[in-house]
């Protein structure tokens, strides 16, 4: 098995003492698009935050391996530098920090090397301007976007596009898209999905984990695999056709099959 697959084994996660994930086993393959679908409260976002290292999510059991490292031992910033990226469902606003300055700092953090003066590895200003402009052009973003404060007063669509811009700038090798479709109208959804596809086209080895409640995003980002998450466990796995089946029948039929009629 490739070290460039992200391997999750028997992952148990609790939030405020309550167990949310109850033994997840999942491998995100290099270059593949995986979709995780599930009803509200099934643990989808918990999985996303746990992989990115949010301190509120307590791993009680299990492991996550990527590129030969136990991801769970790493701080969020080191996970980012290892190539993991989380596109947030609710991107956070930071007043007074421009998109351009933030992205430059993030880029420089990725370029920094242990024991080397960060000034010598930092991206030169002129080169940075070129890179961010080309990425913004690719995502069809207006230039003034870079001068705005991080997510301050952004519409839902703008926030999600900024997440994709960050992904395009940082060039991760595993990207987790946490309900990127939530709160978007169909036009915004298309733009965001196209952005993801462009980044993926440039870097075919990128592994993607699309977390979504609805099938509609998967019309634009075509998954290779679909996993159904319910009650903290993966209960079904299949190909893209399963997304359509879920769309048609809803989650209840799986719930009944897996847990019986008791619920």
């Amino acid at each position: 098995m490739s070290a460039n697959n992200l391997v999750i084994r028997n992952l148990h996660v609790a939030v405020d003492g309550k167990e949310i994930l109850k033994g997840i086993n999942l491998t995100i393959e290099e270059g593949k698009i995986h979709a995780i679908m599930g009803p509200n409260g099934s643990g989808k976002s918990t999985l996303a935050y746990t992989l990115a290292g949010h301190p509120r999510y307590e791993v009680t059991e299990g492991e996550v391996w990527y590129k030969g490292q136990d991801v769970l031992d790493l701080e969020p910033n080191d996970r980012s530098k290892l190539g993991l990226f989380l596109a947030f469902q609710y991107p956070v606003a930071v007043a007074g920090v421009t998109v351009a300055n933030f992205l430059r700092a993030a880029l420089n953090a990725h370029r920094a090397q242990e024991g080397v003066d960060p000034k010598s590895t930092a991206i030169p200003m002129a080169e940075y301007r070129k890179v961010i402009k080309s990425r913004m052009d690719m995502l069809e973003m207006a230039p003034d976007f870079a001068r705005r404060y991080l997510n301050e007063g952004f519409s839902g669509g703008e926030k999600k596009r900024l997440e994709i811009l960050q992904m395009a700038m940082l060039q991760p090798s595993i990207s987790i898209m946490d309900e990127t479709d939530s709160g978007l109208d169909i036009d915004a959804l298309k733009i965001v999905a196209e952005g993801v596809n462009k980044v993926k086209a440039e870097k075919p080895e990128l592994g993607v984990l699309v977390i979504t409640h609805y099938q509609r995003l998967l019309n634009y980002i075509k998954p290779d695999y679909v996993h159904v998450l319910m009650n903290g466990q993966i209960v079904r796995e299949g190909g893209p056709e399963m997304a359509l089946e879920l769309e048609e029948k809803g989650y209840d039929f799986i719930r009944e099959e897996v847990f019986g009629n008791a619920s």
Partner: protein
Amino acid sequence: MSNPAQNEIEFDYSKYGFRDEENYTFKSSKGLNADIVRTISEMKGEPEWMLQRRLKALEIFHKKPLPVSGVWANPRLAELDFQDIHYYVRPGERAENSWDDVPENIKNTFEKLGIPEAERKFLAGVGAQYESEVVYHSLREEWEKLGVIFLDTDTGLKEYPELFKEYFGTIIPSADNKFAALNTAVWSGGSFVYVPKGVKVDIPLQAYFRINAENMGQFERTLIIVDEGAEVHYIEGCTAPVYSTNSLHSAVVEIIIKKGGKCRYTTIQNWANNIFNLVTKRAVAYEDASMEWVDGNIGSKLTMKYPAVYMMGRGAKGEVLSVAYAGEGQHQDAGAKMVHGAPDTTSRITNKSVSKNGGRTTYRGLAKVQRGAHNAKINVVCDALILDDRSASDTIPYIEIEEDSATVAHEATVGKIGEEQLFYLMSRGLDEAEALSMIVLGFMEPFTRELPMEYAVELNRLIQMEMEGSVG
């Protein structure tokens, strides 16, 4: 392991924390009495009225109790021993107008602080004070030709005695508070600025204040007069090496802005953490005049400073935009006073404070509308950020409104650094210190963006070092 953050901090000590060997022409022995006041006045060759003013102020100083309790008071003042301070230290004979004539070691000090370089690049004039005296002073010829006066205050008194008789001590009388009385008794140095009618000085004047000796008291006195329709931007910076004993900086700044004039006064205070910084700053703005205090307090042990604007003519405007950072052992007790004494006057106070490592910030502000000052508008916003459980912040607003037509908006927030913000930034590769600096710098940005670029860069660097110095 090589730690770049550590290197930066060491670099900083060489930049601000260095000490010069003492080589003074006069240094008063510790303590304060009428003889010392007489000596100061005599050495300066002052007129008799100024000596009398000083001696009267000394009496007021002795009579007024130390404000350790009650309003506008701080219990930490009790740590200050007035008899353990040198009140007058004379580094040289006069204020030179060429750096080549400034004594070598003092010139080197200001070179290290980047003052001559800044002067060449973007300033209209520069004053440099070392201990009690201004050692260098200059104003570009183009402004001198237009009648602008920019002198050290001692020279100002000699050359413009009439202006001094008319204005000195009229905005801040000796009896205003104990430290205003102290300053009036022992004042030395500071800037005297006069901008004639209609003259707009569009690049800043700057004064830099440096304390070098231990147990030093620095008492500069600044008087700025902006005539009708004139404009000026005055900037001051201050630093000192760290000693284990206390030093005292107690300035008085008086500003008069006549009809339609504009003044901005920017301070970046980065005193060493053994310095009591007790400053009285007040401006009077007449009809349609405007005063802006841009006030940054990063250093000192205890700062008590509430820049004031008295709006005494119709349509006058007052603004205080300030930031305070309090780290270990520091208390930034700062704020603003806005007094509306005329109709249609507008004031705005924006205060941002950050406390960390046991530091404490206090916002203390007065918003006052006098009877007859119709349609006054006051807007106060104070935001405090507390970075850990050992640190604290208080907000103490005093509001005195004697006019029903006044509009007062007061908004205060106190926040802790959000886990969500930190996580969001860290998930993009920034380490905790970088993420923290970025959030704090963003929080201070409404202040920083008002600074000339060179100062904004310097302030950001100082804050970054504070954030890096205490993580991990």
